[in-house]
């Protein structure tokens, strides 16, 4: 499921050809195995106080895979569980966040790791070396009262080892590769601009050449010009290291610019996943369609319609499909059953009964075919 080779029209396809000078990766049978395979992951915020247990179902039953050398984008509005999902994938789980089910499997060139069934030492050993995490608000990853060099030593040195001098040479070489002056090492974070700090934070995360980089809104606080520069740098690093990137932002324009594949989250669930171009060209889930239709277009004069209501409270999510209270296509079954994430065409998965009717219709729902659906709500001039 979901593991077809990239089609020529895919945005990420051509980039591999630029790296022919590099030593090819070992050709094993598992070359197409995903770097990370998330299955039915469920992570809730659980608090117990005065005998009352409250839970916020931030990530519920999410399955996704990130392949080698690809940029996977995770989209969704604020508080839909994006950050929690990638925190859970990165293993940065601290109470009250709890992982209640599912698995996160890593495959770092034959080195397999089942994140939540491994001892903490094994979990810690992959960090930085194989898996790095650019945190939300990563501009403040650097300690404000320490020189940048100290932050590199504090956070990354243990994962490389060797002498401090060797390590500093590695860092300098890495910074130069990213076109940063090695002089930034001697600066305090407040002496650097926001974009510069962001670049340094990315350099810090990638200095050990990890195979999987997880980035949580790394460009949200920047203006568009600086953002473009930083995104270009992220892409450059990803190409250079041939690593995979799991990229989270609510900014669809950034996704369109950067990502090969895109997953859309709503209220703690993954509702649609497809190659980026397909999502933008032919979104299937009603939520995704509204999301894409809400993007302003050049020359557009008409007023855009807003979707009624607000995202549900994840402490008490609605039964069935979590989108059904706001969904214009809602049927009876939507409030009773959770739509599974089904593969519609190879590589395109969607969780909606309006697109993939339930196998055993309990109460004869009004079936709507996908073509009908897409012509009804797709933006003008963009129908298939």
């Amino acid at each position, binding site marked *: 499921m979901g593991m077809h080779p990239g089609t020529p029209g895919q945005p990420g396809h051509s980039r591999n050809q630029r790296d022919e000078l590099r030593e090819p990766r070992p050709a094993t049978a598992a070359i197409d195995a995903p770097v990370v395979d998330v299955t039915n992951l469920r992570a809730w915020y659980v608090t117990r106080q005065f005998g009352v247990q409250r839970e916020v179902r931030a990530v519920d039953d999410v399955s996704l895979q990130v392949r080698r050398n690809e940029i996977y984008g995770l989209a969704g509005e604020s508080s839909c569980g994006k950050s929690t999902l990638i925190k859970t994938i*990165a293993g*940065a789980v*601290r109470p009250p966040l709890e992982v209640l089910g599912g698995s996160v499997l890593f495959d770092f060139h034959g080195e397999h790791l089942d994140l939540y069934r491994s001892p903490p030492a094994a979990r*810690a050993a992959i*960090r*930085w070396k194989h898996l790095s*995490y650019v*945190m*939300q*608000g*990563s501009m*403040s*990853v*650097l*300690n*404000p*009262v*320490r020189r940048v060099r*100290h*932050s590199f030593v*504090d*956070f*990354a040195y*243990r*994962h490389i080892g060797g002498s401090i001098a060797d390590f500093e040479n590695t860092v300098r070489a890495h910074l130069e590769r990213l076109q940063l002056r090695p002089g930034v090492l001697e600066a*305090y974070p*407040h*002496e650097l601009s926001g974009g510069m700090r962001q670049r340094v934070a990315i350099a810090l995360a990638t200095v050990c050449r990890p195979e999987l980089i997880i980035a949580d809104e790394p460009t949200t606080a920047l203006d568009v010009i600086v953002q473009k520069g930083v995104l270009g740098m992220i892409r450059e690093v990803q190409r250079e290291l041939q690593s995979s990137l799991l990229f989270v932002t609510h900014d669809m324009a950034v996704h369109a610019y950067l990502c090969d594949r895109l997953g859309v989250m709503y209220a703690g669930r993954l509702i649609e996943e497809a190659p980026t171009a397909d999502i933008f060209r032919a979104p299937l889930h009603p939520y995704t369609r509204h999301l894409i239709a809400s993007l302003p277009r050049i020359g557009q004069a008409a007023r855009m319609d807003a979707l009624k209501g607000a995202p549900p409270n994840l402490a008490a999510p609605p039964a069935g499909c979590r989108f059904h209270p706001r969904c214009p296509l809602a049927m009876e079954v939507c409030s009773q059953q959770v739509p599974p994430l089904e593969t519609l065409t190879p590589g395109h998965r969607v969780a909606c009964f309006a697109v993939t009717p339930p196998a055993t219709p309990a109460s004869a729902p009004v079936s709507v075919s996908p073509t009908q659906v897409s012509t009804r709500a797709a933006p003008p001039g963009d129908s298939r």
Partner: protein
Amino acid sequence: MWKVLRDLLRHNRGFAIGVALLSFVLAIALLSFVSPYSPLDSYVVPPDLPPCWPYVLGTTSRGQDVFWTLTFAIRNTLLFGFLVALLSRLLSLTIGLVAGYAGGVVDRALMSLNDTFIVIPLFPILVLFYFVMRDRMSWVSLALVMACLGWAYDARLIRSVAMSLRTREFTETGIFSGMSMPRILVEEHLPYVLPIVFSTTMNNINWSIGLEVTLSVLGFTDINTPTIGVMIYWANQHTALVAGIWWWIAFPVLLVVITFIGLFLLAVSMNEFIDPRGRLGRGAP
């Protein structure tokens, strides 16, 4: 560091005056090492002489030279202040950082201990301590007791900063990178709280010297170790003011006031340095 000190001396009058006053006090304390008399001997000079050469600050009714006794007294008083400050800083840093970082049960336990120390009345405890210890009471044991009583306010202050630091991204990154708790506290959080600690150190020295003088004047300490308070105690015992030997009391009081002002000015100018707006005007350190 030296550049910062130089700039502070040049541009911050309070800091410059504070440093000058404390250097003066320190110089007097250092002179105790070349004193011609032992501080414990009495009747080594003619008693009750007003300031005159060679007894520049006069002599006491016990036949001691006020100036040379004062050098010992201020040395012991300063040492006492520094010792109390050092020990109580260690306590407040450890407890504040650990409580703020660990949170939960650890935080609650440490803070209830902390609040106990905040609410117990200091002075009666110290007097009680003297009556229990009596002759075994020494300068060092008093310093230990005061250090155990003087950390609580600053531990709360440091904890509040540490609680905020715990949620910052650099802490999260440290945890993610596998740094242990002691390393995060020492390498990431300690540099952040250190300027605050410097400032509170000055206040703590002031507080401990003041309390020591109070206790000594009332005779609730080891009265055989010369400190500023003990000097005033002996002067009172010999009814120096009634007898007109004003120099016996005036000079110790003057010197301890100079010490207080110096430490206060340092603490205030340190505050100004910690304030990033003040630092910004001076350019980055």
